[in-house]
């Protein structure tokens, strides 16, 4: 990973990663759920672990007429509920002393002028270092306004009177809704901040197991020689959610759908980590150069026929999960009764590279599936049809390496073993590694790592402009095919609590494969 130049001699060696620098963190959309449930608890947990640099100031920017005190009280209440390390009042007080609220409309230029003055004042108090980290966590319709107003107020450029200072922006998802809107947003972002100062967040990349994919592949000699078409039959990526549209999510979700909400970002990022070539180094661009090549190599499903053959979309109808009756998608809160939005999608992706030629990557994501779980399973080819595989029934199963992203993060490997006894009977057995029980410390939340990386100037775990646009190019073509021929490409129905529509099973069955049971 690239090193940030810092003068502090005491920081070197104490932690083996880039060094986070003190800064003012301005959160746009500070009254929202993300700030309360994720961002502030993440900063609090960094403080608990002693990793938050001294002098970090947090400024919540939002429209509501709140005071500093009211804002902090609300944050404290949520932190007590959701912080992974519990709530330590002493540490909280220390953090809260550096949290303030800035009331302004996102379109109000004067609000940004006042923000600029306030940040200058903080910098003066702090002793002159003017690092700023702007976190855009507002609703996406305000992204343009915020960025343009930051630029107009002169906040997007580093302070001229401060050598080595920086000004960075973190942009939350959704990063566009189509290729066109993503390109527009990229134009606005890059017209405001330089690409090196732009951090497009995809919190899946901050998860411990997602980071571990590269370690698993490139720090172990046993996997990489087999990580190709010669040994791997196919790969499955599953993101299952048992919840539906609770908590008012229906409004946003019904506009986005599973393909845009999950596949364009999270699942294609996971796919690229699994399929990428070894990077030449661990710098942000070294890693992202290889990831974007994977997305660029995805075979494009750009006709209704190809989409029909390789993509299945679905909607759940009423069913039950864990013995509880749940409504169908069209009966969910804030969902249109005649909605054509997919709450489930399964894709057969082909990565047209030398390494992966002919190896399908099956990707599925859906709401109201039987259980929650995100995992990548690597299915190895079967042994030759001699010896044990030539016996009646053959070997019970091929080897499967499973990388569990959430929950119960870990890795398992299925292999075949002889059952004890005088006859030769084989059964699959599982070697299992669980993060929770293997290491004597809990994994940090994804936002902890990502916030610290942004303060350190390390963009490895953030999406680059070309990654985002290439992913949208792939997704857009599928959407266009759906939009242009809804007759031929109907939405498949499945009962809530089942593992998706029959058509998704058939997608694999026609290749002689099955979805892995989670």
């Amino acid at each position, binding site marked *: 990973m690239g090193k940030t130049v*810092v*003068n*502090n*001699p*005491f*920081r*070197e*060696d*104490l932690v*083996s990663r880039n060094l986070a*620098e*003190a800064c003012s963190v301005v959160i746009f959309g500070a009254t929202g759920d993300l700030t309360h449930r994720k961002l502030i608890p993440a900063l609090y947990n960094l*403080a*608990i*672990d*002693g*990793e*938050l*640099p*001294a*002098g970090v100031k947090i400024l919540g920017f939002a429209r509501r007429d709140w005071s500093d005190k009211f804002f902090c009280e609300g944050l404290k209440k949520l932190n007590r509920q959701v912080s992974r390390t519990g709530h*330590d009042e*002493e*540490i909280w*007080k*220390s*953090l809260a*002393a*550096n949290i303030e609220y800035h009331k302004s409309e996102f379109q109000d230029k004067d609000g940004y002028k006042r923000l600029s003055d306030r940040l200058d004042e903080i910098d003066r*108090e*702090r*002793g*002159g*270092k003017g690092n700023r980290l702007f976190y855009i966590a507002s609703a996406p319709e305000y992204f343009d306004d915020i960025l343009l107003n930051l630029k107009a107020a002169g906040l997007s450029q580093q302070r001229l009177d401060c050598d080595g200072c920086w000004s960075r922006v973190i942009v939350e998802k959704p990063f566009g809704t189509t290729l066109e809107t993503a390109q527009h947003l990229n134009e606005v972002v890059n017209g405001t901040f330089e690409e090196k100062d732009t951090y497009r967040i995809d919190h899946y990349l901050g998860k411990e197991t997602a980071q571990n994919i590269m370690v698993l592949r490139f720090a172990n000699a046993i996997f990489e020689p087999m990580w190709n078409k010669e040994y791997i039959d196919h790969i499955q990526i599953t993101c299952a959610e048992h919840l539906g549209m609770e908590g008012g999510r229906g409004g946003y979700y019904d506009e986005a759908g599973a393909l845009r909400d999950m596949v364009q970002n999270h699942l294609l990022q996971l796919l690229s980590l699994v399929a990428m070539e070894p990077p030449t180094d661990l710098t942000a661009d070294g890693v992202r150069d290889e990831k974007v090549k994977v997305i660029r190599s995805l075979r494009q499903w750009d006709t209704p026929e190809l989409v029909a053959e390789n993509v299945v979309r679905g909607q759940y109808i009423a069913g039950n999960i864990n013995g509880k009756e749940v409504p169908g998608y069209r009966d969910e809160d804030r969902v249109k009764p005649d909605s054509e939005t997919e709450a489930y999608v399964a894709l057969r992706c082909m990565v047209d590279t030398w390494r992966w030629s002919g190896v399908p990557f099956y990707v599925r994501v859906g709401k109201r599936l039987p259980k929650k779980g995100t995992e990548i399973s690597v299915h190895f080819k079967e042994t030759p049809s001699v010896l044990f595989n030539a016996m009646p029934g053959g070997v019970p199963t091929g080897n499967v390496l499973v990388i569990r992203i959430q929950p*119960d993060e870990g890795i398992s490997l299925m292999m075949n073993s002889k059952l004890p006894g005088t006859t030769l009977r084989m059964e699959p057995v599982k070697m299992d590694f669980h993060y*929770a*029980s*293997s*290491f*004597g*410390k809990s994994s940090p939340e994804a936002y902890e790592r990502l916030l610290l990386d942004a303060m350190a100037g390390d963009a490895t775990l953030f999406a680059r402009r070309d990654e985002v646009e290439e992913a949208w190019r792939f997704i857009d073509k599928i959407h266009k095919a759906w939009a242009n021929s809804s007759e031929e490409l109907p939405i498949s129905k499945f009962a809530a609590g089942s593992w998706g529509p029959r058509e998704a099973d058939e997608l694999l069955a026609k290749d002689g494969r099955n979805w892995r049971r989670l």
Partner: protein
Amino acid sequence: MTQLNSSAYLGIPVEVGAIDGELKKLWEADEASTNASLMNFLVYTEDPSRLQKNSQTIQELTRENACRAVLIAMNRHAADVKVESWITAHCHLAHGKKSICSEQVSFLLHGRSLGRLRNTVFAHLNSDLPLVFWWQGEFSELFEERLYRLLDRLIFDSSDWADPKAGFRRLLMARSDTKGRMVTQDLSWTRSYFYRLAVARLFDDPMADKAFPEIEGVRVMAQSKHRIAALLLLAWIITRSGWSIQSQESDRVILESREGGEVIVELIWIDGGAPISGLEISAPNFKARVSREAGNPHLCQSICAENHSIDFSGPADFDDSAGLVASQLSRGGKNSLFLNVLPQFVKLLEGGD
């Protein structure tokens, strides 16, 4: 595993030759628990009265570090040579459902018998798993090459040593014998982890950064029992700052900074209080301070510079050995920073008489 759980300390007495068989029987009798082990964790003491306490410590440690625990206490002054042994398991619910157990074998070795410690250790390890060896007390002559060359990680607490100079000489020799393969972890060093993190955090501040070349004084306040922890902390500051020791007289050290300035260090020993109760780094118009009251789980950190001051709290290190060992295990790594600091530390230790 009902029988095991009911045994609070060492568990069931067994014959040494029957240990493996008895352990097997226990697991066969229990289908509800999972026997987990990620390392061999060996605790050795030459104070037999610590055996039961060590078992309690393992009970705590296994909450987050599943292991095959081997506890050995040596009663070297006993006239007769004999061995007593026990087996037990420490079980904890994982995620409120699955009972994960770590098995423990305890030995009380009486009398003197050549090579017995080494042989007892090697006979009861899970193969392939790393061997973490917690040596309690001074390194005796039993700490010998044929034992330590097979250790992956050696944990010790130099604050327990009556003769730290001899202890560290022994340690450096062992490091040299093992060609640096054995990771060494001194709990006295672990005791200053959050102090070091706090200092690093304070010097992120631009005012501290500006004041750094002008530092003229360092004061470390600690319990005299934790002199080694204080010296290791000081050695870290000297090493990281690139300063050199000019002279040392008792608890006053004169250093020269990279800029050629003089830095005066005072070591102040306090009865009671936290192991390390305070650290002050001062320059003209600047003071950075980290302090801790006895038993307080937080460190107070502050900077005062001209018209700029900040105060905040951060986490503090554990006081008890079990907590320190647990935090060491959770951090893992090669502990290379400790090794980098050792040359300056040894100078301070040798020069402090």
